[in-house]
């Protein structure tokens, strides 16, 4: 087979581009959790991913997953059992979990206060993130039909934002448009009221607190794996394909 003809050998890909390309492949959280469980129980069933790719660092990979995803108790137990030290203080996890929970329950102001206590500079540095928190608060007010409060909040806190940045202004307009509908959930902007919006804000905040891309290393690895398989499939290459991530089942070569 000839790779050379279709692939530009010297093509340089920046990290950003690479991440973007990987962005289209999604190992699900459930899949990963199953994989972890599998590893924890059997210890060897997914050798290919764990041991082959990260040569002996599988425990660290697991710890990284537990910590970034906020499984505090599991992380603590895993530390005791495997002897791997988490990269950050596990108590910090508590705080992050608390903040995440607050947002997921719609208690945005509480979350803001928590953030300010722990990371006093964060929201001053990242005003766009702060806007998203404020926007979420506004959404919560609208959800609870506190129309007047919502309007007042928008006026006192958010108009300033809009002046600072035109991008913000359009987002703000979309949010306020919710007020115009009898049933905002059914409006074209209904997605803002969906729980996934809370998730999004929570993740953004979580990432900002972690100061880095908060995707667990394991997820990145799996993304690479899936993407490579996709590329190979596109070129009709025969290879041992992994069909089930959770159990790391690998097919026979000929079946491809």
């Amino acid at each position, binding site marked *: 087979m000839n790779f050379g003809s279709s692939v530009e050998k010297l093509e*340089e890909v*920046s990290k950003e581009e690479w991440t973007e390309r990987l962005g289209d492949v999604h190992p699900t959280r459930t899949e990963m959790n199953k994989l972890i469980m599998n590893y924890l129980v059997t210890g060897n069933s997914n050798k290919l991913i764990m041991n082959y790719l990260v040569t002996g660092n599988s425990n660290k990979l697991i710890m990284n997953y537990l910590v970034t995803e906020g499984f505090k108790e599991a992380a603590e137990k895993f530390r005791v059992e495997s002897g791997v030290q988490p990269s950050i203080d596990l108590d910090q996890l508590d705080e992050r979990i608390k903040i995440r929970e607050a947002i997921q329950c719609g208690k945005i*102001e509480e979350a*803001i*206060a928590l953030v*300010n*206590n722990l990371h*006093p*500079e964060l*929201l*001053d*540095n*990242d*005003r*766009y993130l*702060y806007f998203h928190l404020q926007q979420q608060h506004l959404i919560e007010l609208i959800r609870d039909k506190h129309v007047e409060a919502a309007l007042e909040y928008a006026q006192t*806190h958010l108009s*300033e934002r809009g002046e*600072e*940045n035109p*991008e913000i202004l359009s987002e703000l307009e979309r949010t306020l448009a919710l007020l115009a509908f009898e049933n905002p959930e059914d409006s074209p902007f209904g997605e803002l009221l969906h729980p996934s919006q809370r998730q999004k804000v929570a993740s953004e905040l979580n990432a900002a607190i972690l*100061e880095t891309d908060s995707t667990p290393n394991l997820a990145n690895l799996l993304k690479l794996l899936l993407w490579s398989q996709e590329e190979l499939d596109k070129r009709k290459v025969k290879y041992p394909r992994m069909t089930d991530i959770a159990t790391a089942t690998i097919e026979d070569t000929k079946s491809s």
Partner: protein
Amino acid sequence: ITVNRQMKNCVIGNNRQKTLLIDQGVIPRLLQWVIDDDVSIELRTEAAIILGSLAKGTEDHANSLIESGCVSVLLKGLLNSSLPFVEACLRCLRTLFLSPSPPEEHIYQDATIVPHLINIISKSICTQECITTIFANCCKTTDDQNTLCGNGAIAALAPLLNSPTYKVQMPTLKCFAVLCYKNETVSKTTATATYNGEAIPTLLVKLLARDKTSEMQMAAAKCLTYLCRGGALPPRSNIILMKTLPTLIRMCKKDRTLGENVEGAETLAYLIEEDAELQQVASISDHIIKTLADYLRYTDVQQINSRLSQRKVVNWSNELKQAAFRAFASLGANDEEIRKRIIETENLMEHIVTALSSTDIKVQVGAARCLHSLSRSVQQLRTTFHDHAVWKPLMNLMSKESEELLAVTSSTLCNLLLEFSPGKEVGIQPRQKTILELGAISILVKLACKTEVSMRLNGIWGLMNMAFQADINVKTQIIEAIGTEQLFKLLSDSNPLIVMKTLGLIRNLLSSKQHIDQLMKIYGTQIMQAVVFILEGDHMVEIKEQTLCILTNVADGDEAKGFIMENEDVLKKLMTYMVHTDVKLQISATSCISNLVWNEEEGAYNRQSKLRELGVQKLLQQLLSASDPVLFDKVYMYDKKVSQGFDVGIEEIVMKMLQVDAGEIYFIVLSECIKNTPKDKPRQQNRHINHAHINFDTFATTTKYQNTPKDKPRQQNRHINHVHINFDTFATTAKCHNTLKDKTRQQTRYINHAHINFDTYATTTKYQNTPKDKTGQQNRQLSKNY
């Protein structure tokens, strides 16, 4: 505390709230809390956090804090034992030091502050981040650098290079950069310091690796660049040549951000500025010239930091342009081939001309630097520079106040003023006229009167170049503008280069018979005074030689001869120099005598007999007999390269002198001399050209040449060129011009020499001799081609 917490949550992220609170006078109250030992530490911490948030507002907010004395209160707070409180204070301080007008003076006001900061630097990641950032932004002067270094900053910072936290590594790199920038002592301390057995340069090289962020690679390359320019790392070392240089070139590439492009090109320009080999290597690395050329075509003005509260408008077009210009200037500093490749950049000259008139001073300086570098090429001076009106914008720039601009523009002007025209070439005269109309003389005179050595030098140098082959009006204008008094001042300057150039100016003024007589009539007394003043002074040989050359020129005038003949003191001095131990002086003095006794001129007989009375003839005979073994040897020893040129030179002159009595016979002997070496003829002729330069001979030799080969018109043309060469102080450059048509390659080489001299120091006479290398060089070039 709850009130405080509310205030905090309200202030964070809200500029409007910040303004409101500041207007209500909250700052003094907060400061009161921070400083009050009786208040609980929690409240004090909260107060410091609120101050920190206020500082993160607009520039005005930060300034109000600084004006309220916030900095010293917070610095005092650092002495507290509570880490959260200290961290809150440090965070606020960091923000203030990152503001556009950092309060750096506070750090050095009290001598205990720096040691304390270094002391607590390792306490936590937060202290590391903050203190490195503060240092990186408060280190502006050499004193600052030395203070920080003297307090052990380098040992404290070294471990942080290995920190696992990116946010610590980055400001640490910035710290090293500002500490080492243009500071030899600190650079050397840094280069020799180690951490865990690894030298700092080695640690820095690790951060150049491609798996690090661009930002980090850039910052590390900058540190290494500064270490190199600070004399702590040799430019030819692996670290620089194989690691730093390629990294910087990588940063200039399209796939990096505009900011990295600009920084990369600027740092590259600085790294290679003074090393010809680095320039050479850089010029052939990854199409750098083409990459930089693309910078000139960028036209957008973009906003960055849209995510953060403060949005900065950056004119990327200007930033990229000036960076490219700077890099071009460095790349082409020494090598003609590189310069040629740069100039081939599409529309480069148009870009430069436009940039010279830009409103952005950085762009102006960049363009002027680039122009300066390119002006070292005679070929470009005669072609590209000729086609583009660089004069006007350049002269405009010179009237600006900026010192940096003036240094570059005046050097450029010097080069541009070099007239390479052998005669009255059409097209060049108008150029000089334009410059004159633009007030070049007065600008240069102003420079020549400045207190800074480099400015004085450029001023007098420019005048000297301007006087070369100028018409009498220009010459008179120059003398009147500078005045004899200032000329005397310059002649007693402590810098020998300036004295040299001043003498060069006088020499160039006193060229061509008519001008000599005309100018001597007006300024004769002063000029003779100046000559005696220098001849009696304690000066290096080159200066005395220049002075004797002036005398030689004076002796070429008709009436001007009188100034020497009537001054027995000067005549006796000339005789002393004829037997001087230095051959160059012997030759110059002898040339002068030769001009005085020249047969064909009026009153020659009287002068000859007067000189004979003084015993000149005896001296000449002495010289000739000496010239067989001893003088020849001496000449040979003086400089192997020029030995042949010299031996022909002195013999010829002396021989000519001996023919004085014999009258007509002289010519016969001389032509015999030439005829005897038929095979070598063309080479000899070259040699004549060479030693003509060495001698600084004036009309004496040339008239002779003109008289000799009547039958060979082509040669005669060449000789005529010599006349002009002889008047040039920078004989090489002019000479190169003469060989232009036949030997382009060589020409450019010599020109390099001459121009390099312009910037550093010039022992021009030395370089003039280099033509002897010619054949060798040519061979080398040929073999390279194969």
